Structure formats: structure tokens, C-alpha cells
């Protein structure tokens, strides 16, 4: 249809707003609260316009275009009124950065004779230079405020992880509230109270953590002011480039953009307009990546274990030592551990290096145990993320979507909101729980029986519990049910049995399956190399059949195993207890180009955006150098040479596993051990480090080696956050700190472990607890 904006005739689509129409034709109308991805709000009132035949001054962001509309956007009256509004806004917004006399000097010398704290918003506002309010002020040429100005004196909220909140800078555009609710489907924050006492935050003054914040950072991205700011990027300034990449922190490998300044990664964002995109990242892709790549704990120089102790050596020296250890070694007595975070190019190089040059077939990864293999074998039936859209019944099984798998949890929430029944089977309350048609907690300590009941109930009508009946009924009437499995299953003692039943259920009902896994390139690893299981290699080590361990980015041991020498090659130092003979610093994501494979064998590529720190070099280059040193074969390991060899189609091959009969006896809680302890291996692992351990803020939301307890239980037992308690099963006991959180139901305890093996057996394990010192 045709509309006239400021005497200019333009043709626009039906149904769009006047603001969108103007923007499409590069006509700028000042606006602060409108946002592309969000419903119109009409709060800031800056986008007022005149429309012939309409009374008053409608807002462009809320008024739809109509055929033959005549619109004026820049009359004198309008501009004057906009100035009025903006002055009103500024009268309660620290405005030193906007209209201060010393603005010029301040920006060039970054100092002012006035002693104004950073929080009052002079040149030191974290959004300075990147602030939408500043832009509008510039545009409307405001240089004084005629109203009394005041400071709202709201407390600055900086005690929660990842982002700070200074609502003194807030203009109540509610973009944060809307993006959290409409786009992220989390509804953590809302506008509270009224009028001049309006505030933004979770209901009942809960902390963001308790209110279920995912720390996805969407609200921070869309905030037009400095009210919400990323702790890690607060003073980073304006990036000088935005580079496309993918996130390596789980196998969904989300698309991201990497923000660079002077060659340094200063942040990561979802793709799209940096101020508009709510994105689909989780806390890891949004906030953790920057921390990791800039971690002060990176291994920056090669280290060698001399008789006197560890010493820093040059690469030449390091390569010489590696050569010595590898040159005449018997390949059969070498074992290799590879991280599932290595790229396809690195894995292929490792394959050539170890199979062809070192002549070993003892290649594994610390995660390749029998349970993982049963789990990942199901991937043959796995669908891709997009196909969840077509489902008409979703069942998640032991999925812990907290701080994880955001695109997946988002599509579950979206589907459930539109009415697709969503069943959540498992103990943990996560961001999807609010949308669950039913959350079903399997009979404690009888998990396998529980799944058996479901299978039986599908085969013939029976006397199972009402919730199972409802579940089965819903699955049966659906044409496209999907089971989404979480990696927590792998930690259960009966995992293998449960997975077999699930497979049966899936076959019986014609369901599809979606497997989540926290390892960015596990599929690539299993597709490019014939691996052995972790158990098999461990057995060789304990039988003293291994002389040399070569560990690349992996962390398989709790203490030094009985071998002659250990080479560790990783972006991060090997744990001290390992006493590695040689540590070689390698480059990681961001510093290398490469590719990952997803569950369907599709390959996703990404490029290097920066250089590795210190003397760290790419894994492939390390292979190249050592190969030259031992000089056996003429193979090019560099990225260029290798990338051509990657097959177009990837197909997984699984290591052979000998399954031992279950030793641990599974039992439900009883009067002596009334609580059920669930142990979960921290899934937030990257190379040989844990994000929780490496990033302080991550530690706050995913705390390792602490017991998480339901508030009601805690109240009953008079236990408080931070208390230390004794946890005792019939054969083991240990002291842990307590965290009180609603994510676990009553009569359950959750323990997220840093180690690969669990202290309590079996898992889940009936325990009882008492306070330490009582």
C-alpha cells in the first residue's frame, strides 16, 4: 500500500507499523522502547508522529500503516515535544555523559575535574559510546534540562553473576522484561510497583538465580542504556569488529558472533544486530567463552619435568624431549586420550600421527565409557533440532536444561506454550518445567521399573499410575512424539538397562529421539577414529601394559597412573597431581580454524579470530614439529593439508565394550536412608577444565561438590545455605557444603561432581544426612 511520510510517497507492506515503514525507507524516527523482536509497547513516547485524520499524536511504533496515510514525522511541534519528553527522561537519568560541559575533555582525556563516581554515569558509563539514549540526545540536540534533576538512589545490584544492574540508568522501556518473557520464555523479571517507584526485577524481590534466570544475557543485549551491563565486558568499550563463529561448549554448536577489540576477544553475542538480537545462546555461549579464552590460567609455554622440578622450556627443547620419549617407543605400549572438544582437523591429524607414526591403536577419550556408548548408539534414530518443531508430543528424560542447550529448551518452551503436551521425566526443575504439562518423578530408586511400567502400559492397558497412563495416552494419540534424552542418564548405575527400555518404548510407539550431549565434537571423534573404550585402556594401564600416555586436552585421571611418562597437550595446564613429564600449550577455539560435526554428521566450520596467548601453537603444528623431530614419514599435519582429507559424509563407529554384570544393588530410600542422592557429572567441561572451576560466576550457578537441597527439606531439618553436612550411605560418608535451591524436589539431594567417578554407589543412592558438628 502507499503511504506518504514527510511528503515522500513510499510503498509498504500491509500490517507493519509506521516506525518499521519509516525505518525501511531510512527515515529516522527517534525511539527507545520499540524493538524488532518484541511486541509494541509505546512506553517511551519518543516516536510520536502526526497522522492526517487522527487525533493527537499517535506513536509510530504502535500504529499500523493504512493505505493512503499521510504521516509527518519531523514537524517543529513534534521535535519540540520530543525534546520535552527527553528532558523529562533525562531529569531522572544521570546525564553527565550527555550534557556535561566537560564532555569533550572527558572523552578525549578520560578525566574530569569533577569527582563523579562511575555509577553516576559520566563518561564512565559502561554503555558510553554505544548507548541508544545518547544517540537520541545527540539527535535532538539537548544541551540542558529545564526540570529539576534528581538521582533515584537505587542500590546498584552487582552481587549476582555475569551482569550488573544499575537501575538508576534505567528508562523503563521494558525491553528486558519483554525479551525475557516473549522471546526467552523465562519471565524472570517484571515491572514492579507503580509510578515513580517503578522498579524492574523478579517478583517478591527474589534473586535472579532463585527466580530461574538462565543468564542468557538477552536482557543485557537489548537494554538501550547502561542499566544492564555485562560484568566481563563492562569497560571493554566498543568492539572494532564482529566475527562470525560457533560455540564449542556443547554439541549444538550455536552460531555466535565474536566481538573483538585490538585483537582481543571482548565478548560473544548471538548472531544479528548486537542491540536487537535476543538470540538463542545459553550462558556458556553468551558469557563463558570470553572468560575461557582470556583465562589467566591458560598454559602459555611448554613445561618439562626436570629431576629438580617443573621448568619452562623453549619449543625446540620441548620438541626434542617429546622426540626422545616417542622415537623408539613401542606403539602397543602407548595410550592416547583425546578431548571431545578437538576439531575434526585436529582429530584427523591425531589419527595420522598416532596410527601411522606412533603405530598405536590404543586411542580413547575419558568420556568413552560403556554407558556413554549405549547412549550415543541411540543417535542413529536421532532427529535434528529443527524437527522438534514438527512434534506433537514432547517427552524429556533426565534433561537438565539449566544453563544448557538453550536452543533446545527454547523450542520445547515455544512448542509447549502453543499447546503441545510436554512431559518432563526426571528430578530436576529446569527452565522448561514451568511449561510442563506434567513433571513426572520416577519412583525413587526404582527408575528402571518406572520405565518398564511405561513400556508395559504401552503394550497393554494395565494398572500403572495415573500419570503414566496419561503419558501413554498422550503419546498414543500423537502422530509425532519425540523423546529428548539428557546426558544425566549416563551417570545412572542402571543406565544401560534404562536406555534399552527407552529404545523399546521408542520402537513400540514409533517415536523419534533427540540426544543432547555436552561435547562439541564427540560425533566427529567417533567418526574419524576407531577408538577403544575407556575401560579397556584403563585395564591395560592397570596391567602395566602402557609405558607412555599422550593426553590431548583431556582429563581422564584423578591421580597419576602407573606409567613411565605422560605428555599433556592442552590450552590449559594439566592437574598438578598428574606430574606430567611434558606439557605442551596448544591453541583453542577462537585461535584456530576448524570444524565440528553434529549428531546428523553435518559439518559446521568456524574461523580463527585471534592468536593464541604466549607461545601456545596449534595442535596440528605440534604434531608437525614432533614428526619432523622423529622424522619417520613425510606427512603434512597443517590445517590446510588436513582439511582436504575430511570425508564429506561422517559415520560413527563405536568401540567394543565388554559389559560387566551390575555389582551395585539399587534400592529405594528407606527409614535409615530416607533421602535419594542424585549425582550428576558436571556437564560444563571444556578440554581438561571445568567451567565452574575456572569461572567464578559460573561457580555460583553450577557449584561443584556441594549438595543442593530443596528449601522445604532444609527448613524441616533446620539447615541453611552454606551449612556443612554429613552425607552417609550404607557404605560411604562425606562432608559437603549445602546450597538451598528449588531445582530439586523434596526428599532428593543433588550433587554435581567435578570428578568422573562418583563417590556414592550406586547412583542414585539412598542416604541420610546430619549437620556437621551436631
Amino acid at each position, binding site marked *: 500500500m502507499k503511504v506518504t511520510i514527510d511528503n515522500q510517497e513510499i510503498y509498504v507492506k500491509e500490517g507493519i507499523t509506521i516506525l518499521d515503514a519509516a525505518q525501511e525507507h531510512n527515515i529516522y524516527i527517534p525511539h527507545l522502547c520499540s524493538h524488532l523482536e518484541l511486541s*509494541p*509497547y509505546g512506553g517511551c*513516547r519518543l516516536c510520536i508522529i502526526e497522522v492526517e485524520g487522527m487525533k493527537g499524536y499517535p506513536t509510530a511504533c504502535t500504529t499500523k500503516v493504512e493505505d493512503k496515510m499521510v504521516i509527518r514525522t519531523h514537524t517543529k511541534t513534534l521535535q519540540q*515535544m520530543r525534546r520535552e519528553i527527553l528532558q*523529562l527522561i533525562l531529569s*531522572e537519568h544521570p546525564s553527565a555523559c550527555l550534557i556535561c560541559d566537560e564532555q569533550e575533555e572527558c572523552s578525549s582525556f578520560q578525566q574530569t575535574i569533577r569527582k563523579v563516581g562511575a555509577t553516576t554515569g559520566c563518561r564512565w558509563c559502561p554503555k558510553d559510546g554505544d548507548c541508544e539514549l545518547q544517540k537520541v540526545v545527540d539527535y535532538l540536540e539537548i544541551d540542558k534540562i529545564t526540570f*529539576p534533576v534528581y538521582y533515584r538512589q537505587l542500590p546498584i545490584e552487582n552481587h549476582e553473576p555475569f551482569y550488573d544492574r544499575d537501575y538508576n540508568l534505567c528508562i523503563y522501556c521494558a525491553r528486558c522484561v519483554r525479551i525475557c518473557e516473549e522471546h526467552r520464555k523465562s519471565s524472570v523479571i517484571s515491572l514492579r510497583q*507503580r*509510578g515513580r517507584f517503578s522498579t524492574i526485577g523478579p517478583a517478591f524481590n527474589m534473586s535472579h538465580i532463585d527466580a530461574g534466570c538462565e543468564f542468557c544475557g538477552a536482557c543485557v543485549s537489548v537494554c538501550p542504556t547502561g542499566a544492564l551491563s555485562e560484568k566481563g565486558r563492562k569497560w571493554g568499550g566498543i568492539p572494532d569488529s564482529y566475527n562470525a563463529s560457533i560455540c564449542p561448549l556443547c554439541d549444538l554448536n550455536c552460531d555466535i558472533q565474536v566481538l573483538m577489540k585490538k585483537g582481543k576477544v571482548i565478548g560473544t553475542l548471538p548472531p544479528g544486530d548486537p542491540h536487537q538480537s535476543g538470540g538463542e545462546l545459553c550462558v556458556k555461549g553468551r558469557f563463558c567463552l570470553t572468560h575461557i579464552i582470556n583465562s589467566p590460567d591458560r598454559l602459555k609455554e611448554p613445561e618439562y619435568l626436570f629431576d629438580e622440578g617443573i621448568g619452562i622450556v623453549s619449543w625446540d627443547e620441548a620438541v626434542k624431549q617429546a622426540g626422545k620419549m616417542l622415537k623408539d617407543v613401542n606403539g602397543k605400549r602407548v595410550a592416547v586420550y583425546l578431548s571431545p572438544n578437538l576439531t575434526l582437523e585436529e582429530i584427523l591429524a591425531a589419527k595420522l600421527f598416532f596410527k601411522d607414526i606412533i603405530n598405536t591403536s590404543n586411542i580413547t577419550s575419558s568420556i568413552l565409557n560403556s554407558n556413554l556408548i549405549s547412549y550415543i548408539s541411540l543417535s542413529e534414530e536421532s532427529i535434528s533440532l529443527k524437527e522438534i518443531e514438527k512434534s506433537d508430543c514432547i517427552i524429556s528424560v533426565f534433561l537438565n536444561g539449566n544453563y544448557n542447550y538453550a536452543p533446545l529448551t527454547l523450542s520445547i518452551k515455544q512448542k509447549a506454550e502453543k499447546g503441545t503436551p510436554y512431559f518432563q521425566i526426571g528430578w530436576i526443575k529446569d527452565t522448561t518445567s514451568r511449561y510442563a504439562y506434567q513433571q513426572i518423578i520416577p519412583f525413587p530408586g526404582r527408575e528402571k521399573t518406572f520405565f518398564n511400567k511405561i513400556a508395559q502400559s504401552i503394550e497393554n492397558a494395565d494398572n500403572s499410575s495415573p500419570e503414566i497412563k496419561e503419558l501413554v495416552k498422550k503419546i498414543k494419540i500423537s502422530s509425532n512424539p519425540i523423546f529428548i534424552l539428557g546426558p544425566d542418564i549416563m551417570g545412572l548405575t542402571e543406565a544401560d538397562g534404562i536406555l534399552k527400555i527407552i529404545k523399546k518404548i521408542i520402537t513400540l510407539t514409533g517415536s523419534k529421539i533427540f540426544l543432547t550431549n555436552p561435547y562439541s565434537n564427540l560425533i566427529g571423534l567417533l567418526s574419524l577414529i576407531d577408538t577403544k573404550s575407556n575401560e579397556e585402556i584403563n585395564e591395560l594401564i592397570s596391567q602395566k601394559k602402557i609405558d607412555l600416555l599422550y593426553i590431548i586436552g583431556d582429563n581422564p585421571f584423578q591421580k597419576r597412573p602407573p606409567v613411565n611418562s605422560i605428555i599433556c597437550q592442552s590450552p590449559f595446564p594439566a592437574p598438578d597431581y598428574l606430574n606430567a613429564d611434558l606439557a605442551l600449550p596448544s591453541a583453542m577455539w577462537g585461535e584456530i580454524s576448524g570444524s565440528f560435526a553434529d549428531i546428523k554428521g553435518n559439518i559446521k566450520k568456524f574461523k580463527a579470530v585471534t592468536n593464541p596467548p604466549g607461545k601456545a601453537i596449534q595442535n596440528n603444528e605440534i604434531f608437525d614439529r614432533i614428526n619432523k623431530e622423529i622424522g619417520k614419514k613425510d606427512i603434512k599435519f597443517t590445517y590446510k593439508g588436513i582439511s582436504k582429507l575430511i570425508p564429506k559424509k561422517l559415520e560413527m563407529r563405536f568401540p567394543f565394550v565388554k559389559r560387566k554384570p551390575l555389582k551395585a544393588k539399587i534400592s529405594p530410600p528407606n527409614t535409615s536412608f530416607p533421602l535419594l542422592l542424585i549425582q550428576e557429572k558436571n556437564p560444563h567441561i571444556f578440554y581438561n577444565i571445568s567451567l565452574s572451576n575456572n569461572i567464578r560466576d559460573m561457580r555460583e550457578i553450577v557449584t561443584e561438590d556441594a549438595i543442593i537441597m530443596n528449601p522445604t527439606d532444609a527448613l524441616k531439618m533446620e539447615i541453611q545455605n552454606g551449612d556443612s553436612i554429613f552425607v552417609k550411605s550404607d557404605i560411604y560418608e562425606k562432608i559437603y557444603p549445602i546450597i538451598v535451591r528449588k531445582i530439586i524436589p523434596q526428599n532428593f539431594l543433588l550433587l554435581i561432581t567435578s570428578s568422573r567417578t562418583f563417590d556414592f554407589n550406586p547412583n542414585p543412592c539412598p542416604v541420610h544426612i546430619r549437620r556437621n558438628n551436631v
Partner: protein
Amino acid sequence: MSIYRAHILLPIDEGTIQSGAIEIKKELEKRIEEENLKEEIKILETGTIGVIGKGVMIVVYPDKVTYYNVTKTNLNNIIQEHIIKGRIAEEVEHSYEGHKPVEKEYKNVGLTREQQRIVLDKCWKIDPESIDDVLAYGGYRGVEKIFSESISPEAVIEEIKNSGLRGRGGAGFPTGLKWSFTRAAKGEEKFMICNADEGEPGTFKDRLIMEGDPHKLIEAMIIAGYAVGANKGYIYIRGEYELSIKRIQKAIDQALEYNLLGKNILETNFSFYLEIKKGAGAYVCGEETALIDSLEGKRGYPRIKPPFPANKGLWQKPTCVNNVETLANIPEIIYKGSNWFKKFGTEKSTGTKVFTILGHVEYPGLIEVEMGTPLREIIFSYGGGIKGGKRFKAALVGGSAGVFLPERLLDVKMDFESLDESKAVLGSGAILVMDEDTDIVDMLFSILKFFAHESCGQCSVCRIGTHQLLNLIYGIRRGQAQEKDIDQMVKIAETMFDMSLCPLGQSLIMPVKSAVENFRQDFLNKIQNKNN
């Protein structure tokens, strides 16, 4: 059926209950028993008579004498003098109906002066908790007429249109037209909502209508629902109005019992269900779209219009929202016809209007008079004049977002057009009278405080504008201001008028501008006082 010599009416509303009406009733019953008058005197509980702040009241019929501030002690006096001896108990404060107003002879006339009652016609005559009483007094005649004469919804709307009835909730929108929008809107399911949120401070007309004659509202809702094509209605009542809620609920239950509500009303194929929703008490929730949000269980924020509720209201379905008083006119219009209704009021503002008179008058309370009655008559005749014989200074007309009228505008006629000519509004029908000792700055201050508190915070102009107005008037009251601050206030209010999202922010211009224009000296006094 026995015939009584006299009826003693005991108005029961929240005000009188608080003053001890229940105990007085017990005492009265005891005394009548003691005096052996049970056969002669009938005691009747009624709804409000429209007077407030006068403690427990009783009305003796057929003499139509109202006694105020009745206590156990002076009750005896009333019984001895009036009931037994048949003459007015002069020692007890009282007034009686039937006086024609005589200039200057205002005393003892007060609110019980003959009024033209349509909305309040049954209040004070019936027991509001008895549907039989209501039916005996002509309740539900409108509904009966529609169904017995098979009047079509379109004809009902036409009748209302012809009556010229305009909304009494503030905006004065023609009711028939509003109904026709909802009727014409596409959609299977439609809703009828009665706005009984009455958030305006100092306004209590809707409460007294609901307490005094709840069935009238039920009847009106049935007619409205029938006309707009809704089968479900909600009455959104302010949570504090416990007695209203109780009485409306009782009325709904009784109407259901008599098949005046529910499935197939009076064996027709029209079904209508009514439900009460309690409001949470925010002023802005009285705004129709915020009210709809609140009904949906959300926090009440005004919505952006268009779309209007007539097209996308409750659950995005066509919805009609009307005020209690608007609706209370409906049954009589239907029963007696729009031409009858048009006889009252002025040409463009037909019918009557219920006013609440408060402040420095002798008889604060509720009256119903024809549209177009001069303000002077309302204050000096019905209100009994300024308390203590003081001079009139101003009247805030139309509620807190109303206009401060000075003495020179006392003769303004109280109807939509005349007020509009004087740049004033009818608003909620509240009239706050101020005597010569009142300071307009203080009055405006309390209004601004109210608005700063009630602004929902959604849009910037209103959120910050209300706060800034408060800042400025703080300064003026403390004598820390300059003359330009006075004009600054008007400017902010003007900005808010032009640019606020909803009428709450837009309406502040009324009190601010009228206060400054008509009573500038009060502001200057404040500023100068402290400056020297």
C-alpha cells in the same frame, strides 16, 4: 398481610455499619418490642439513602423524616417523640423531604430534598437483599418487557441510542453507539463487563448503587449482554467494597434461582452468566483496558488503543465495558421508553446524574438530579451550603482529575456540554467543595501525590511527569520556588496531555491548569511567604 402505621427504615451501608447501625437496629427492635408497637411499626433494612458522614440514620415513613447521628440515647427520644407522640424529635438532627427549595432558606433541606431519581429510584425503599422486595417494586420489568414483547437486540440498542444516554464512567461516550460497536464486531464469543472499580477518591456513587439496589445492575447487565451479544458478563468490583460484593453476589444467586440469569433466561433461548471479579485496588485498573488486563489475571496496564475493547477486549474477544451508573439507567429506559428518559436533562445530556458532594458543605453525600442542574443549586440547596456559614472558594468538579471551579463559575450547568464550555468535565460526578480557608496549593498537592502514586509507570511522560510535578509543588509549598516553576507545572501537564499513553496521564492537565489559572494567587502567596 398486616398493615403498619409507620415504617422505620434503617439504611445499612458500609458507613452506617461502621457507626454501629447493627447495634442500633437491635436496640430499636428491643425498644419497639418493649413499647408493644410490633403490630404497628415495621422495621426495614434498606440500602443507602445517599447521605454520608452522619453516623447511623433512620427514616420514618410515611412522614419522610430522616434522623442523623442516631445513638442509643437519642433513639429513645425519637421513639418517645416521633413514634409514640407523632411529632418530630427536634433535638435530634434531622431533615425531611417535600420542601421545595426556597432561596436562602436552605437549612434542613439537605440531601433529602426532592430529587429526580432514576438510578437511585429504589434505593432506600427496598430491602436490597430480597429479590421479592425488588420484584414488588418493579424490578426486572425491563427484562420482562424485552422477552415478552420479543424485542430484538438491535431494537434495544436503537432504544438506548435514541435515549441519548452517555457513559457515566468519565468519558461520556454514547452508550448505544458503544453497544452497537460490540454487537457489530466479528466473533462468536463476546463479553459484557461492568466497571465497578470506582477508584476515584471521594467518589462512592457506584458503591451506593450496588449496595442499595444490586438487582438493578444485574438486570442492566442482562439487557446489555442481550443487546451486544454476550453470554458472559463480569462485574469488576473494587476489593474493598465488601458489602457491594456480598450484595451483588446474593443478587446473582437469587436471580439464578428465579431463572433471570443462567441458561435460557425466562425460557427464552438467551443464556447469560454473571461473575464477580475483585479488583486489586490500583486506580489505573479502572481504565477499561487495564481492567481487562487485570481480569485476565495480568498486572493491570492500560493497553494501546486501537484496537478498542469493542473489537479486541477480554481474551482478545469483542467486549463492552460500562460503568455502574450508566448501566443503572438501562432498565427504566427500556421499560419506560427512551422518550420518557429524554424528558430529563438537557438536549444533549439526557437523564439524570448522580453526584457525590463532599468537603465543606452542610450535607455531604449523594444526590441524583437532572443533568443541567446548576452547580450553585447542588451546593447550596442539596448540599445545604457551606459549612459554618463560610464563603465558597472553589469546587473541584469531576474527581481528582477534575477542574477547580472558582466562584465566578458557580452557575455553570452540570451537563457534558456546559461543563465543556467552561473547560471542565463531569468526570465521576464528584464535587469537592472548598471554603475560603482552603489552600488550593495544598489541594493540588494531594492530587499530585495521588497521581504520582497511581501512575502505572508504563510510559515515560506520565511516570516522570507526575514525579516532576510533585517535585515542583514540593518546592512551591516549601517556599523554595520561583514564579516560573508555576508555569513549568502547566507545561509538564501539557506535555503529559499530548503524549501520555492513557487518559490517566492525559487528564492531569485539568486540575493543574485550572488551579494555576483560577488560583494563581495561592501559589504566589506560598512562594512569596518564604521568600521574604
